[in-house]
């Protein structure tokens, strides 16, 4: 526990606290529930909370005042330009970023020499990057930095062992929790999550995964939609995930071309012949997977006005969009191979795409990126993310219009949504149910959590994964859904309560929380507080923490970080049931768990 908690005994202040509890007790209506019509506009505090909840992962202690002081519109404007935003606390985390071997050990069976080698390589790359004066943002000390030198243009870099790749994966995904929690550029983090799910891929190769997440998604998260679309289309992660690297002209056509083809002078003829033979073996005909999902999920939407014939024409336009190397270790970046391309004009939604090799795919992307159905579909999804599950038509329309006016300038579309008069309408306040990643990160922010790799190692995927969102691991291309009905389940609720109890009592190793800061924040927001009877029964809470030996492996292994709470959980310190002391440690733990587990906190 970072701030030393003074354990006060029953004191006069507590009487005042009692009155506060009487006012905000468990019978108060949900402060974050959609407001009734009696309130026609949000208060200044509510507006700040709304912005923090929608443009970010929820307030930390002190954030509400910071936003009000800056001015709400100024805050929004600042968030739209993340490039100059400094995040000292995040920088500190990323700088000290090392995976202690112990916690890594817990994740996978460990090949220590390989990890040590990876670590040495990481340091040397970092040093070189520093000598070059490379910017720490986007190409920082974590995996992205390593990729810049080693991986950017490699599909599977030579000489990298499987263990190193898993190491990399752990590192990258772990940084996403740090970034979401500590970055001051909160909107950027929201958008990285949003666009990753929109252009979802999974890859067994963590380098691919991390490169896609950082150099494709993050790079264009507030840029032009067309640039983002093109970057995803050309990335090895997408080419492999949706099979386009294997999609070719009919086999006999490719066969004939390869038979009569001579490599250009100066090229390694043996290598080319072998590679072409491999293409022929693996890829001999049309695969429409990418063509379909490109229109259905990335651009037009399933009702965007295309047919099965259009899917096939688009798939033909993308034949030959493949990778340079097909074997492990050969390296593989985007490569257009004309020998594999289906020649001839294509007709997509009535428009002729003249025969033109790699340009055909580019023309299709450009056409789709500017199509009114795309403007509408993408705007609908953004409004669903930022406003309401059932996206209000007037905001969608305004956003779609701006999309078309600006050729898909994402920043402009977002500004239109955030500045729309209905954005701050009381009916949307607290009306979105958080998805699991948001539950976890907003919880960590609310208690101003300080967590390290000992916490991330065993937990970074476990907690939100058990609620149904294993981040960056959605198998199908539609990405994780963004509506309440997808996330409200008996299971996710159950897991949220265990999360609330574990966080508030600091029973997960590597985690420190600020209970006082959290309580102050919760009162400012107007979250419910436990009734005196509940606080008096605090002991049952601590008994419950030890009640299930089977699931408390981390907790009971002597790994607790907070000694006072740990002692209470172990039953070594008796909780005095006769006194109601709201400033006692046990009362604070119960109060924070109570709020984190409340339905109110589950909304944003």
């Amino acid at each position, binding site marked *: 526990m970072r701030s030393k908690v003074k354990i006060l005994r029953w004191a006069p202040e507590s009487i005042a606290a009692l009155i506060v509890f009487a006012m905000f007790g468990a019978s108060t209506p949900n402060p974050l529930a959609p407001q009734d019509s009696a309130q026609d506009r949000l208060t200044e505090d509510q507006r700040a909370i709304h912005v923090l909840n929608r443009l970010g992962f929820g307030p930390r202690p002190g954030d509400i005042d910071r936003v009000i002081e800056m001015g709400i519109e100024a805050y929004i404007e600042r968030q739209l330009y993340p490039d100059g935003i400094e995040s000292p606390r995040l920088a500190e985390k990323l700088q000290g970023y090392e995976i202690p071997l112990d916690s890594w050990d817990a994740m996978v069976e460990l090949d220590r020499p390989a990890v040590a080698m990876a670590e040495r390589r990481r340091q040397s790359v970092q040093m070189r990057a520093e000598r070059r004066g490379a910017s720490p943002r986007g190409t920082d000390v974590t995996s992205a930095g390593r990729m810049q030198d080693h991986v950017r243009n490699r599909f599977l870099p030579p000489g990298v062992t499987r263990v190193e790749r898993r190491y990399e994966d752990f590192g990258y995904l772990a940084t996403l929790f740090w970034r979401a929690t500590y970055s001051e550029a909160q909107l950027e983090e929201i958008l990285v999550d949003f666009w990753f799910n929109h252009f979802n891929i999974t890859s067994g190769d963590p380098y691919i995964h991390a490169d896609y997440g950082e150099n494709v998604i993050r790079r264009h998260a507030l840029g032009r939609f067309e640039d983002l679309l093109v970057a995803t289309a050309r990335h090895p992660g997408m080419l492999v995930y949706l099979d386009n690297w294997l999609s070719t002209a009919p086999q006999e056509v490719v066969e004939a071309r390869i038979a009569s083809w001579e490599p250009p002078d100066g090229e390694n003829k043996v290598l080319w012949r072998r590679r072409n033979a491999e293409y022929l073996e693996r890829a001999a005909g049309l695969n429409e997977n990418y063509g379909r999902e490109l229109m259905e999920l990335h651009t037009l939407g399933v009702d965007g006005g295309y047919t099965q014939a259009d899917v096939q024409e688009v798939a033909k336009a993308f034949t030959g969009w493949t990778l340079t190397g097909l074997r492990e270790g050969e390296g593989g970046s985007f490569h257009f191979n004309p020998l594999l391309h289906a020649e001839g004009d294509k007709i997509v939604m009535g428009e002729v795409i003249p025969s033109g090799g790699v340009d055909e795919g580019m023309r299709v992307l450009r056409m789709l990126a500017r199509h009114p159905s795309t403007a509408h579909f993408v705007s609908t999804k953004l409004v669903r993310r930022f406003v309401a599950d059932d996206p209000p038509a007037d905001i969608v329309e305004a956003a779609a219009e701006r999309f078309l006016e600006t050729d898909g300038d994402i920043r402009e579309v977002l500004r239109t949504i955030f500045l729309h008069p209905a954005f701050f309408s009381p009916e949307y306040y607290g009306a979105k149910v958080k998805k699991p990643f948001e539950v976890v990160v907003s919880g960590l922010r609310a208690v101003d959590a300080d967590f390290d790799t000992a916490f991330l190692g065993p937990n970074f995927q476990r907690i939100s994964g058990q609620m149904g969102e294993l981040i960056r691991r959605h198998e199908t291309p539609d990405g994780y859904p963004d509506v309440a009905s997808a996330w409200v389940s008996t299971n996710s609720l159950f897991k949220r309560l265990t999360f609330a109890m574990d966080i508030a009592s600091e029973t997960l190793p590597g985690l420190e929380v600020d209970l006082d800061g959290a309580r102050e924040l919760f009162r400012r927001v107007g979250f419910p507080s436990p009734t005196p009877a509940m606080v008096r029964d605090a002991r049952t809470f601590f008994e419950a923490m030890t009640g299930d030996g089977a699931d408390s492996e981390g907790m009971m292994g002597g790994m607790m970080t907070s000694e006072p709470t740990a002692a209470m959980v172990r039953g070594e310190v008796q909780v005095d049931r006769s006194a109601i002391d709201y400033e006692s440690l046990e009362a604070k733990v119960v109060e924070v768990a*109570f709020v984190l587990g409340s339905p109110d906190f589950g909304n944003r």
Partner: protein
Amino acid sequence: MINRRIFMKDGALAVMGMSMVPGFVYRTALTAQPRLRKKTLVTVFQRGGVDGLNMVIPFGEKHYYDYRPTIAVPAPSKERRAAIDLDGFFGLHPALQPLHALYDRGELAIIHAAGSPHETRSHFDAQDYMESAAPGAKNVGDGWLNRYMHENQHPEATSFRGVALGEVLPKALEGPAPALALGDLTGTKKVQGARSLFESLYDRETNALISGTSKEMFNAIDQLAELNPEAYEPANGAQYPTPNGQNGVFGQAMKQLAQLIKADLGVEIAFVDIGGWDTHSNQGSLEGRLPQRLQIFANTLAAFYTDLGDRMGDVAVLTMSEFGRTARENGSAGTDHGKANVMFLMGGGVKGGAVYADWPGLAPEQLNEDRDLAMTTDFRNVFAEVLLGHLDPEKPDAVFPDFEIDNAGFKGLMRG
């Protein structure tokens, strides 16, 4: 998003939340003696569009081999690994061998060329349509299994009546009737202990989806805490595939389901997912991506069958997938999104040992849009036949909006 549970914010569910659900609780909590054995319908969803033509191979079709030069499964043969002959025309993929004994015993029925009348080739639309049992109707927000429960309520219903084994509730179980999603069950004792702390919070919640779900959870928690899933030992030597990343998920889910059924908690409707069927590339013939998935699928279902033993007399397992795949293999030794597909039905009450199909043929002119196995059996009629034969609901018609159940088209899938 249209969800009846949300629509009925202040209506039916509120009523259910206030009066009916506590009714369940007391009944469930107070009944110490074993409950009446109830029938259970288990639905297994193969997400991604499984290649039914390689699950149950029409080896009697010459065209099948023309269309699939590298991924076809060889016709039954004594000399080498090949399809397992079922009836002289259809064969079972050898990776499904663990289910062959059930077929021989007459407890596995296979329905071929079944599917949706809707033309969509989108996974997500097709899954929604299959789970709502309302192809083409996007405004139908609830699932067919929930509709069954809602329209056919009975006094012995417990909070475990409708259960999905997974982290989130699938569309098939969304709707006004209570339904549980059960993922990893560790931690139940902890939450049970702190129940009084949290329950009051959810009692005053005005969002019906959240308050309804929380009631369902708090109702179930006592019994789950009793179950002690870690200590569960499958019966009759049944061996579920061991947890190993994604490969163990289905096995664990079915194992947990077996435990719930055997504990007599009143599971009537269960839903389990198994993904990994979207084989656009390198799907393989006898070995490869598809056979690996099929093996996990078959081993798990066979283990579940063994584990339940005699209890399978009360249980029917129905498998489904949103669509089949193209008759011809594509350029990547895989198959693209198709149309009709194969469904399995197994259980003690099943009239199995046969492949039920109005076989449309695989000649080019017999294919749907010259590319897929054509649909001759509407999947809803299979759902209806199984519902009627196994659970005998009072109001079957209400389960299928805008669809008339075709009793004459029933295939005789169930005994009695």
